[in-house]
């Protein structure tokens, strides 16, 4: 069976096709999520080859294990980004590549960024806008953890705070960010893909 036009399928339908070794579905998923995934991996790893490794492994993991994906628990794109992030963080820790200043701006837009479509651009602005509304300490904890690849214990040491404080900053920050994103999704003039 050959699906000739994958563009109209949901991410989850594509994953189901990937589970049946449909290459076109894998290509379509890459086209939808690959740019974001690479941008994320690069932000964490600051190295093109390692970022490519992280993305490649995640998509290969998807190719091999798509049959085990249970769509009701998460969106397919979230699943892929989770795989990529996990891999990037594992790599950055192993390579000890984390910069002392992990919040240096990534070279965004230098070579044309991943946001070559309007929705991605808006989504990025929406999330960055929500991040800016967080209390500084919560934002700092989220950014150092997620983009910097630091563990909670490393953060506690780095910021000179008790572990419990770091945990609660991350929890409160993520919970608050969720609220802000929900609000902006309701208010916003663009639609998200969340279903």
């Amino acid at each position, binding site marked *: 069976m050959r699906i000739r036009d994958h563009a109209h399928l949901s991410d989850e339908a594509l994953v189901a096709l990937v*589970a049946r070794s449909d*290459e076109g579905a894998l290509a379509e998923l890459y086209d939808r999520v*690959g740019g974001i995934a690479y941008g994320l991996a690069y932000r964490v790893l600051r190295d093109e080859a390692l970022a490519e490794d992280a993305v490649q492994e995640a998509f290969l993991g998807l190719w*091999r294990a798509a049959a085990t994906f249970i769509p009701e628990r*998460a969106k397919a794109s979230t699943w892929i980004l989770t795989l990529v992030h996990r891999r990037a963080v594992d790599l950055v820790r192993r390579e000890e590549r984390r910069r002392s200043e992990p919040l240096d701006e990534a*070279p965004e837009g230098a070579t044309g960024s*991943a946001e070559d479509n309007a929705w991605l651009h808006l989504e990025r602005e929406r999330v960055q806008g929500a991040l800016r509304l967080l209390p500084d300490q919560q934002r700092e904890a989220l950014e150092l953890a997620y983009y910097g690849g630091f563990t909670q214990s490393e953060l506690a040491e780095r910021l000179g705070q008790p572990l419990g404080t770091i945990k609660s900053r991350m929890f409160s920050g993520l919970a608050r960010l969720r609220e802000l*994103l929900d609000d902006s999704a309701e208010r916003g003039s663009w639609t998200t893909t969340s279903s």
Partner: protein
Amino acid sequence: MDDHLELTAAYALDAVDPRERERYEAHLATCDRCREELASFWTVSGALAHAAGGPAPAPALRERILAQARSERPNLVPLRPRWALPAAASVAAVAAMLALALGLWGSSLAGELDRERSARAGAGEALAIVSDPGAHTVAFRGAEGHVVVSETGKAAVVLAGLDPAPEGKTYELWVVRNGVPRPAGLFEGSEARLVQVLTRPVPADAKVAVTLEDAGGVDTPTGPPLFETI
């Protein structure tokens, strides 16, 4: 607050060390509340991914991924994968990553928890096989799934959409070589998904077949296979 619930945020951000990760995942297997919260927090960390703002990937990456996938198409002779990876930690790391796929997104129906747990017991080995960069896959004919065979011959079946075995029956795996089937493990079947490690290695010239047998299994199949590898 449930201490684990707070840890859910750290876990969703991948801000835990391997020991904390393992402990948390063990807890997840037993806690619906944390699983629900994690699914929700993963959506938020997925949003953070969108704001990462890194550069665009080289076009060659797309081609490389598709070529690699093609080389692993279950119904083709496998090519030796060449991952540009430093060998050591990579297998374990990919295995950890795939745990997300194989374990944690399982159904949260309370009645299935026991099955989840027992499935998880063999999950470590299954993950090691499925994520072995040197592994190749062979598709089943007549069922949706495939066998992943690692370089050492250790193998796991991945099946989806297989009806549970009827009451008093069991599925039985066979490694068939030179026409001789040897028993390779029993499993129950599951609507959703199934990853099962074979109890014996799969040599390059062997097939893997599945039959339906009386509970407890048999030493020689009592009928033709329900399905087998290509």
